[in-house]
């Protein structure tokens, strides 16, 4: 049985026994390489399920849709390790109750899709631990290497040029599982810290604030840069912030549902004396 068939059977079982009220997975998209989210409420709907190497989108963000989890019923969801980290963060930030989530875990290794052992987020902690240990892996993306070579001025110019193309469509924000605020800071206009028109300065303000808001929270799933209509490599800046946070605070986002948010927590034995 292929992994797709195996999981299809599991989804049907979950839905028909009433163990979950919904399973979020993938179905075919507009082109052969694209997949769309599939929200399955009945066993029949699971027939459309697709699980292959094109299923790269991180679906975790759908879990925080207003009202979805408020009835305390359980929901199943297809997640790669990055998505599992996302739901750990969402749980740590009180956006969902992790016990309501049934994880249908999978991983993509080149041309292969592998099932992951376990169904609750905690089952994957050893896996995430091993990802953390190999986290600052050799930069595979040639662009990263290029950026790493730049001096700070060149790097600033690089990002300024990239961000100058931003059209402030906020697709990146919509696609990101971590951008769950009811009102985003860009939408706050009393006062308007971030300019809404898409000129270079306003764009910089927006993209840099977003990078700050994601530091220690981004799992590098790439939803944002896949969503960006002008192809800004957004994930790279967030991944870099992740590296900084890992180096400075030994914090790898999404280790567990009890992990304290790095920028909100402090240790009483911090060497800085301003911490009382």
């Amino acid at each position, binding site marked *: 049985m292929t992994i797709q068939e195996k999981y299809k059977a599991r989804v049907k079982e979950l839905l028909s026994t009433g163990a979950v009220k919904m399973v979020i997975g993938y179905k075919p998209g507009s082109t052969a390489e694209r997949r769309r989210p599939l929200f399955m409420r009945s066993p029949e709907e699971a027939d459309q399920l697709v699980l292959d190497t094109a299923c790269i989108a991180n679906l975790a963000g759908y879990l925080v849709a207003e009202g979805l989890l408020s009835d305390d019923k359980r929901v199943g969801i297809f997640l790669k390790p990055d998505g599992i980290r996302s739901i750990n963060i969402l749980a740590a*930030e*009180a*956006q969902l109750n992790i016990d309501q989530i049934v994880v249908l875990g999978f991983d993509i290794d080149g041309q292969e899709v592998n099932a992951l052992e376990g169904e609750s987020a905690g089952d994957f902690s050893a896996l995430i631990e091993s990802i953390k240990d190999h986290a600052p892996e050799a930069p595979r993306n040639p662009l990263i290497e290029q950026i790493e070579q730049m001096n700070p001025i060149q790097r600033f110019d690089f990002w300024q040029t990239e961000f100058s193309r931003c059209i402030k469509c906020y697709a990146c924000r919509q696609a990101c599982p971590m951008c*769950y*605020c*009811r*009102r*985003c*800071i860009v939408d*706050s206009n*009393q*006062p308007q*810290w971030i300019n809404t028109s898409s000129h270079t300065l306003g764009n910089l303000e927006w993209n840099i604030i977003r990078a700050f*808001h994601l530091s220690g929270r981004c799992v590098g799933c790439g939803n944002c840069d896949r969503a960006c209509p002008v192809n800004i490599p957004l994930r790279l800046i967030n991944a870099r912030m992740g590296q900084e946070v890992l180096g400075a605070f030994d914090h790898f986002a999404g280790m567990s549902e009890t992990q*304290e*948010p790095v*920028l*909100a*927590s*402090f240790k*009483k034995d911090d060497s800085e*004396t301003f*911490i*009382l």
Partner: protein
Amino acid sequence: MAKIGVFICHCGENIASKVDCNKLATSIGEHPGVAVALDYKYFCSDPGQERLKKAIKENNLTGVVVAACSPMMHEATFRKACAEAGLNPYLCEIANIREQCSWVHTDYDMATQKAMEITRSMVEKVKRNNKLQPIEVPVTRRALVIGGGIAGIQAALDIANAGQQVVLVEREPSLGGHMAQLSETFPTLDCSQCIMTPRMVEASQHPNIRLLTYAEIESVDGYIGNFQVRIRMKARYVDMSTCTGCGDCITKCPTKKISSEFDCGMGKRTAIYTPFAQSVPNIPVIDKASCTYFKNGKCKVCMKSCELNSINFDMQDEFIDLDFGAIVVATGFQVQDNSVYGEYGYGKYKDVINGLQFERLASASGPTSGKILRPSDGKEPENIVFIQCAGSRDCSKGVRYCSKICCMYTAKHSMLYAHKVHGGIAQIFYMDIRAAGKGYDEFTRRAIEEDKAAYFRGRVSKVWQENGKLMVRGVDTLLGKPVVIAADMVVLATAMVPQPDAKDFAKTIGIGYDEYGFFNEAHLKLRPVESSTAGVFLAGACQSPKDIPDSVAQASASASKVLALFSKDKLEREPVVASNNETTCAGCWGCVLACPYNAIEKKDILDRSGKVIKRVASVNPGLCQGCGTCVTFCRSNSLDLAGFTEKQIFAEVMAL
């Protein structure tokens, strides 16, 4: 329409020499919304304040900017003046053109330009200021005093004598602290025990003082006027309500060879013990770590010997939760561990002791009943070398500061020695003699002139043993010669250091500490007894090395601060507190975690049927200290700080 008054102060020459105040007044006068702009030599003076008040009334001002020194200096002054003129004091802001401008710049034109920008930015802020009212919080009229040394006892007695309730917490089995260990005290040479014990008894019998010994602070929550404190009562294994302190158990206890902490290792105690004969309360504790029963499960001799059945081996630690309005921290000091000075042979040679050990030898209630006898063979030493600054003023191994008391107690030791051992020779190595204090210089002179103490100005480089003598090699810098003295005993004037757990303790209470662990005062000169946390005061050697007079003075000062606090029914606090926009809050609890004062709670928003529709953060204005941490954290920009709202800050920035 905004009608802002701008008052530019020359501060004598302080500002006027670098900033063209007149020009500043003219140009800011043209800024939109500014109704009047005046400059004057000293606005903080009486006539200056009158000008300001007059201008407020005449122009019906809606806001005031005083361009002057730092708000730390005179914000309160000018806000009060505004209030007197009928303007809400929070509509007054200070533009700091002294510390942040005239004092740090040399170019007249550019400094004037910068002063203009600073002032303009404050004008834009003030236009958006809101009238605020001070927050009223109730006061629990009960004080917590932590530490039962002389400082803690004094503070407790002063507060109690004024009719307020006090809980005095001491972690040792008895009150007393270091003063109980001392023999006689400089500069009067009166017996320490004789002046201390009556105080201890008074504190324990005072109707307004609840004494908790063998107790420690577990946690502190809350804020000025309203602290919630959990106190751990360590298991004594002796029932305090029935024990009469007869001491039968102590006499019978077979585990007798335990080194006595009170006697600094110069004497022995039993496993069930009171630290010293005059202990208050005079009720023993069992030292679990040494007790044979706790170690081997066999013994219970004490239990059998107690006619009142007061011994209970099953006792557990207990917790007491109490509310307090104020806290006095009086946890005292420790003497530094001299073993860092290997070259002085402390810990290696029995006859090299520290000052506190010498106090025990000289004390009538000490292990030698007040006779100066060498620890090694019990012989009376014919001469003693005292080494001052053993640890103090030493950047390499010790501490950088001066311990302040060692000059004095060393002089005292030399006198006690001269009085007790006729013909005994005291030789003292010192760096400087610091005897500033009432009667202090006279005291050291007496040691030199009457009691013939020989002072050598110089350091000791090594102490070693030779033919039964301690050889002390030092230098006499005044003669420019090395000196070697064969001594019978060596006493090190050890540095005063903070309690080993001072930093952790400070974190439990929520107060600051310096690099060593001494607790920080709010202002070294002007607020030396307040900690930086409102409602927590400091007394005694926990703040810095101190002698008894200073410790007592600070304790009484703390007590007066506590009493001033308790003289009010309600406290007024600055209304600079955060508030949350419940509509936009995402309930991520980042702020809840980030708030250093635990001021943010989780609040359920219910629908009409009582169902929780969402949970949001909610700031308790009584707890919030206005630090702004949460505001900077909140990603959804839901939190704002009164007096420093985002609108105000934004306007300030945009005006630059």
